[in-house]
């Protein structure tokens, strides 16, 4: 079992714009929760601040920020939505 895992982080809206891309590869310690990806994002994204109501989806399933990531997962940061 590797000590580091790599996950794909999907970004949208202002975070996608700040990152200049909608998709980033992030390496972090095995056993890290979904919420831990935030600390690995570019400064330009972190400068936006993380809205309290942000939700997480792993592999297109809603999850909680405490859900443990596995190598190869796709984690989406779902900012407060405004469709409709």
């Amino acid at each position, binding site marked *: 079992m590797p000590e580091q895992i790599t996950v794909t982080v*999907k970004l*949208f*809206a202002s975070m996608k714009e700040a990152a200049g891309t909608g998709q980033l590869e992030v390496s972090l310690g095995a056993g890290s929760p979904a919420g831990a990806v935030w600390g690995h994002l570019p400064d330009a994204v972190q400068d*936006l601040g993380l809205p309290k109501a942000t939700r997480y*989806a792993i592999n297109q399933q809603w999850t909680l920020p405490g859900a443990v990531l596995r190598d190869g997962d796709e984690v989406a940061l779902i900012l407060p*939505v405004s*469709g409709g």
Partner: protein
Amino acid sequence: MSALRSGPLDTAAALTAVVSTDHGGIALFAGTTRAEPRLREVAAIEYEAHEDLAEVEIQRILDEARDRFGAIVVAEHRVGSVATGEPSVVVAVSAPHRAEAFAACRYLIDEIKDRVPIWKRMHYTDGGTEWIDGTGHRTAGQPTGRG
């Protein structure tokens, strides 16, 4: 069938899609882009989705409405740029009676607005833009007195 559309929504087709001789009521709601000339005038709204998750979530909401209200249901949401006056989302239902038709229609639009990962970015006529996603991120336009 995909619920996300990059071109204009066909509200008349949504009505036709839910017609049934078993059902006594059809209800439709369409969300349209407001110009807001007295606040900061809107030129267009751009919608961005987590497309895969949005499709899954809209289908889930449609299933819920179908089960709860015995309704025939459809929903479509725009992605990309939507001009003022045009619909960005349309939901339509038919149900045995009026009360269920209204309830199912309201359920669809409320849940879509609450749960589906779609974000809007305002494009103002003064050239500025603003993401509505909880971060308050905006680009400046010409001064408007609104900050």
